């Protein structure tokens, strides 16, 4: 798949996911250490962001070193782009349903679907822009949204690097451990769905 198609896929699915969202109602974590650390902390202590990013990075790593390398660049890049969009003054206040993201990513990892590298990257980019957008909506209320977004993006970069490298370097039973982790992500999505229906 050519480069522009990957971008087109990412944009199409990302916009689709954003349009299937619900209104935002959350606040940025305040560490008292400034906006960069607030951005980092918000990402790290929010399972609805952390788990899908870890899942997407693992799934990219399952495809080998080449997709993992591209995920390290694309996922944070799209996250940052999404954050900037979300921080725009008139950005529609929509956030993806947590259960949908968790079930989707968790299922991909658990099933270890043998998709081409380009589609894995498209998935990462899509997750990045959609979650980054919702993070941007929340960060928009912060004192310094740009630096919050930079902090969160740095955290996404670090988590993506570590998770995708760990997944790319493993095989055999350790890969199964990662797939089990994927099933837990999906299971937590089902719990979130149950809670949403409740």
């Amino acid at each position, binding site marked *: 798949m050519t480069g522009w198609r990957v971008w087109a896929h990412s944009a199409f699915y990302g916009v689709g996911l954003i349009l299937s969202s619900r209104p935002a109602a959350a606040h940025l974590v305040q*560490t008292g*250490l400034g906006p960069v650390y607030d951005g980092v902390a918000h990402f790290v202590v929010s399972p609805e962001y952390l788990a899908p990013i870890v899942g997407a990075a693992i799934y990219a790593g399952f495809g080998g070193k080449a997709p993992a390398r591209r995920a390290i660049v694309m996922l944070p890049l799209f996250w940052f782009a999404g954050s900037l969009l979300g921080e725009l003054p008139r950005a529609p206040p929509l956030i993806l349903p947590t259960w949908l993201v968790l079930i989707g990513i968790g299922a991909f990892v658990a099933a270890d679907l043998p998709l081409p590298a380009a589609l894995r990257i498209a998935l990462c980019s899509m997750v990045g822009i959609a979650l980054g957008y919702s993070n941007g909506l929340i960060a928009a209320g912060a004192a310094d949204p740009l630096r919050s977004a930079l902090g969160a993006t740095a955290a996404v970069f670090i988590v993506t690097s*570590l998770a*995708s*490298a760990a997944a*790319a370097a493993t095989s055999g039973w350790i890969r199964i451990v990662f797939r089990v982790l994927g099933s837990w992500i999906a299971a937590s999505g089902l719990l979130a769905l149950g809670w949403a229906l409740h």
Partner: protein
Amino acid sequence: MSAWKLGLSRRLIVPLLALLLAPLTALAHEARPAYLAIAETAPGQYSVLWRTPMLAGMRLPVALQLPQGVRDLRPPQYDELAESRVERRWIDAGKGGLQGKRIDFRGLELTITDVFVRIERLDGAHSTEIVRPSRPYIEVPAPRGGLATAQAFLLQGVEHILFGADHLLFVLGLLLIVKDRWMLVKTITAFTLAHSLTLAAATLGYANIPGPPLNAAIALTILFLGPEIVRSWRGETSFTIRHPWVVALAFGLLHGFGFASGLTALGLPHDEIPFALLSFNVGVEIGQLGFVALILLLLRAFKVLEMHWPLWLERTPGYIVGSLGAFWTIQRVMLIVSGE
């Protein structure tokens, strides 16, 4: 990449990074907390010491607001010291005392500073709490014991190093120079030993360096690493590249005085200092080792994935160390010269 492109990238990247990191210049080393000490002197009566740090002649804009119904037993006293403003009050909080009542720190939410609150009861029991800008008040708790106090100082130590961008940049600079694992262990150990030594000496009152020259000297240690990193890239050698642990040991002594500012500014009671020092230092080490571990893990991840970054991007961390070291040095020397 051509030399021209590399040069252009440097010219673009460094100012851009400087712009993004500029706010850190105001933060490095200036995260000194405020301090509130409340000691019960008779049932329901207290002496209150409220110390707020001064920076460049400006007082931290945080006001202490005691619970309603509290009355002064005698007029408050105010002292302007070199690095802090001290307010002393003697209050009567009524029969129930202060326990369970709320003390507000108005304006704290607009700062990046914490407030240490030490409360001592009539029976000698005491506790220490940290109040943060995200929750700028405290409900005076019942005594919680030593473990909670240790936790408070440990967290302050972790925060102090994670927030002290200059310390982290110095450690990053060392990591960029160090060539092998054994040298890394020696260098980090030397830095730890050195800064622990001066942290203890400064906190216990055996040694002291005034804040402005100390901050300038710390900035100079970071600037010093910049050219060494460039030499390392070029494959050249120097004393620092061959023996980075010696530099870590020598400059670590200065950084220890910097760490001490996080504790000495509090003016803790003498008997609490050793315990606070130990917890705080453990916190600093946890923060430092966490940072080193994170960098090493990232490098390992890039190696596993055979990442090949563009040269300008690969060298950006080195440029950040050198540029910010230079910026801070100039800025802090100017502060000394201007007498602020």
